[in-house]
């Protein structure tokens, strides 16, 4: 009894340069000739069992390996996001002061794919970070100079710089899979359908149904996490206690891009510089920010000083 083999032909890739709507350190590209439907990954924290299938699927799909670490007294392994671990289950033991009951809050952490991406805004390397019209924020590693500005720019503390190739890494929302009409690897692996992927509209609708269910179970403050401070996100959560996102391993209550971002080293200038030629600009920037490949304290100082003056 033979089943036909699955189709192994490469499917048509349908998420390309032409769909880019924002590009780091570059002039805003002309509006694309088409607008893709806005997508979202919905993570229903109330359904998550913390099995880490998503975390493992992410390593598998991206062909990454995390080192075999140690136990430090918690279930989170590794203990933080890393250049290999784009998504991490974070476990919090929280005693609900109203009921006195313990709740084990398990949140899948990773890039939120902000509508208004702080990483991209902070990034000084032209084209190292792009945003597509469907909302996906992607890192283009050839263009990345490893300066770490994206880390500073991100209100969720997501990107991690590799010690091996000095490039920034984070969840791509499986842009390569989405490009061929599939959902993210984590959503596919999740056994409880805690992770869903679709248009943002569909996902918000689905979230609504879940919130009604949670309210019926006594979670009066159940709600969706789609923070307006960053223009909404393309990864959204259903939380049982949406009034207290911070109890979920420090999910920011009202994330916003730091006002400093626009000012770091006169960030706005980079757009102009990019026009002078990407190579030259990258060379120059790399010279400016090289060293530890990190934002240096004096950069922040400068930015703070600038922030006091009128924004440019």
């Amino acid at each position, binding site marked *: *009894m*033979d*089943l036909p083999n699955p189709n192994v032909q490469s499917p048509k890739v349908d998420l390309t340069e032409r769909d880019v709507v924002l590009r780091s350190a570059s002039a805003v590209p002309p509006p694309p000739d088409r607008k893709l439907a806005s997508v979202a990954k919905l993570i229903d924290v*109330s*359904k*998550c*069992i*913390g*099995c*880490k*299938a998503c*975390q*493992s699927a992410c*390593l*598998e799909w991206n062909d990454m*390996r*995390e*080192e*075999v*670490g*140690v*136990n*430090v*007294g*918690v*279930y989170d*392994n*590794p203990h933080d996001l890393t250049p290999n671990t784009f998504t991490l289950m974070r476990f919090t*033991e929280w*005693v609900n002061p109203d009921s006195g*009951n*313990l*709740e*084990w809050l*398990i949140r899948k952490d990773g890039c939120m794919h902000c509508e208004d991406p702080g990483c991209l805004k902070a990034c000084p390397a032209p084209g190292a970070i792009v945003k597509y019209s469907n909302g996906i924020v992607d890192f283009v590693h050839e263009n990345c100079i490893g300066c770490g500005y994206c880390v500073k720019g991100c209100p969720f503390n997501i990107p991690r710089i590799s010690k091996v190739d000095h490039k920034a890494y984070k969840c791509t929302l499986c842009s390569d899979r989405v490009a061929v009409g599939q959902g993210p690897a984590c959503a596919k692996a999740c*056994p*409880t*359908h*805690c992770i869903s992927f679709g248009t943002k509209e569909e996902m918000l609708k689905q979230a609504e*149904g*879940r919130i009604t*269910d949670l309210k*019926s*179970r006594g979670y009066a403050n159940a709600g969706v996490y789609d923070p307006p401070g960053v223009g909404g996100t393309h990864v959204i959560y259903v939380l049982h206690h949406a009034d207290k996102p911070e109890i979920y391993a420090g999910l920011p209550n009202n994330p916003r891009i730091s006002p400093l971002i626009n000012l770091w080293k006169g960030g706005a200038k980079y757009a102009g510089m990019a026009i002078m030629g990407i190579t030259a600009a990258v060379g120059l920037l790399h010279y400016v920010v090289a060293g530890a490949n990190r934002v240096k304290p004096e950069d922040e100082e400068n930015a703070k000083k600038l922030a006091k003056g009128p924004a440019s």
Partner: protein
Amino acid sequence: MTNSWTDIRNTDLVIIMGGNAAECHPCGFKWVTEAKANRGAKLIVVDPRYTRSAAVSDMYAPIRPGTDIAFLNGLINYCIQNDKVQWDYTKAFTNASYIVKEGFTYQDGLFTGYDETKRDYNRSTWDYDIGPDGYVVSDNTLQNPRCVWNLLKQHVEQYTPEMVERICGTPKEKFSKIAAMVGETSAKDKYMTSMYALGWTQHSKGSQNIRTMAMLQLILGNIGVRGGGMNALRGHSNIQGLTDLGLMSNLIPGYLTIPTEKEVSLDTYMSTRGFKPLKPDQMSYWQNYKKFFVSFQKSMWGPAATAENSFAYDYLPKLDVPSYDVLRAFELMFQGKMNGYFCQGFNPLLSFPNRKKCTVALSKLKYLVIMDPLDTETARFWENHGEHNDVDTASIQTEVIQLPSTCFAEDEGSLVNSGRWLQWHWAGGTPPGEAKSDVWMMAQLYQRLKALYQKEGGAYADPILNLTWNYKDPNEPTPTELAREMNGSVLEDVPDPTDPTKLLLQKGKQMASFATLRDDGKTACACWIYSGCFNEEGNNMARRDTSDPDNTGAYSKWAFSWPVNRRILYNRASADLTGKAWDPTRKLIEWDGTKWAGYDVPDIVPNAKPDVVGPFIMNAEGTARLFARGLMREGPFPVHYEPFESPIANPIAPKIRGNPVARVFKGDMEQFGDAKDFPYAATSYRLTEHFHFWTKHAQINASLQPEFFVEIGEELAKEKGIKSGGWVRVWSNRGSVKAKVVVTKRIVPLTCDGKKVHIVGIPLHWGFTGAAKKGFGPNSLTPYVGDANIETPEYKAFLVDIEPIVGPVS
């Protein structure tokens, strides 16, 4: 499972107790999520720890390890006291109304007939009153004080919420809340499903744990219905297949039993099987036993099994002891009485209790053959790995032969899931290196053994020489050939008794199902319950049709579900005495005036009248047993017995240690520890990141949960000066382990019989081979004793002590 994974989505209430489905069966757990999301179902979790299942539950209550029967008897008591009983169901479908023999009593934790020296009972009074007509005497009004119902009521009376709290440590309010939720499912249209696993089996009274829940489910009317059932979540992807095929020393395929040495002939063997009905007009399915047995013998020995030689009955081994279970096997090795061991897909060095004893046992073997895709600890038991396997290699003379085997993903064949679905799968990869399939290895062994017997002769060579071996390539039977054998085939034409010009069965054809198997040698079938899996319609296990008319969750065209593609066992019980569904929104099968029909294959003769034939046709009574007669070794009703190592004496029978009929080998009793030396109640379990001892060999899994740890509550940590993430030593009377420690709010001390009991949780995934960090397992600590009925070792409840230590320098 009585039901299937997909059926769980039909439930109103899930109770996870004796298991941790979210953690250990994450894929199957999706059906719980569906029931919650789509039906508003509620989830209750009762566990010594707040688990990942508890994390998504509506109600969680802690319980001391090894006290489940007290909790469950408490629930039964609650239901009886508060009239939360599905009366029509209980009266008609259980043995509630049957009268129990005079002489049967229960007192101080023991039933009539106990013999302390034998650790066993004379069970002669544990039975019904049988009338002169040969049928059981009953009282449908339930007034007779000797009827099962009244005896049960009396038996569970002492398990009040206060007593439950005293034994289990479960706060009374939590217990009462759970009791109320459970009690609601006594309504005719409310169903609860029980999901359990090794958290119930791995106790010295494991079988009774499960039985107690089954009794509760029966009086609630939750068996045989959509969204109900007793659902055992099996611990390996094919462990259901293992049991079905009888890979135990006392079984032959399809839950038939190996004869004992007292059963010298087929007639004596049959005289205690194939029970006659105990009620007029009842059907007792085991009356077909001989058909299944003879067809099995024909499948094994073909023409050599004849009516004259009682179908080669003498070829079968005869047991001199109840079973050669794993504990007995290692005990025999330990005594030097077993000196060769074939270990196939098994890692006893980490899986069997009292690891020290296992190491000694393995060291006494002459040879050990390992067939495994992985380099297991058992294969390396002789290798010194420092403190993780501190053996003196030079002194071990055992010859170890490692035969690398393929893993399931490199094989074609079928796996039987917990829901009894035989699902065919295809090879997804090519085996590495010299790895060969298990079938190939077994075939090679057989060919060589046979050649030796042919050449040299030997005592009673017939069973080997005459074994049926009709495979195209005798060196490697194909999965298809083997599956066709399980299904069975017709060996000789059988004419149709109603029309002699026609054939009922045609020689050479595959059996359509076991319904037409015969006891005259004209049919062969290796595993009767699998019959129908590969019939003339083809390989039904390979079916992948996801259609599900009216969304019942049956998915009847997906794979094959034994028996006869039935998805829910006892489904006749889903309808009332007139044959109408108890819950019209969850119809399964109904009586249309002449026959049973519906969404599932009826678990009853299709024309059996609903008010005449009882639904539990595997029992001679036709009803389900609230009173187990003599079938369980501890007694007809479940009693709370403490684990052999317990922090407190049994509040209901302080003089009894452990299960009074559990088998304890000489020397092992002395190794049980006492609470004064080992004050903490320990339990062992799996974590979702790993599958047993396999996935520590996979780099990604190893990185997700890299290092052996134990878990304790904050209070104990404080008392002992233990810091989360630090190192501890944990020891029992049998061994000692070093581990990292996770200090957690998920474990809280419980107050039992006035004493504060701290719990130590010990996950089981680490060893000294593979990609993860080297570590220990709970079996270095656990006691050498098993369940009294089936000898599953007591891994879930034992005593330890703990102290902080300075960790190794890394």
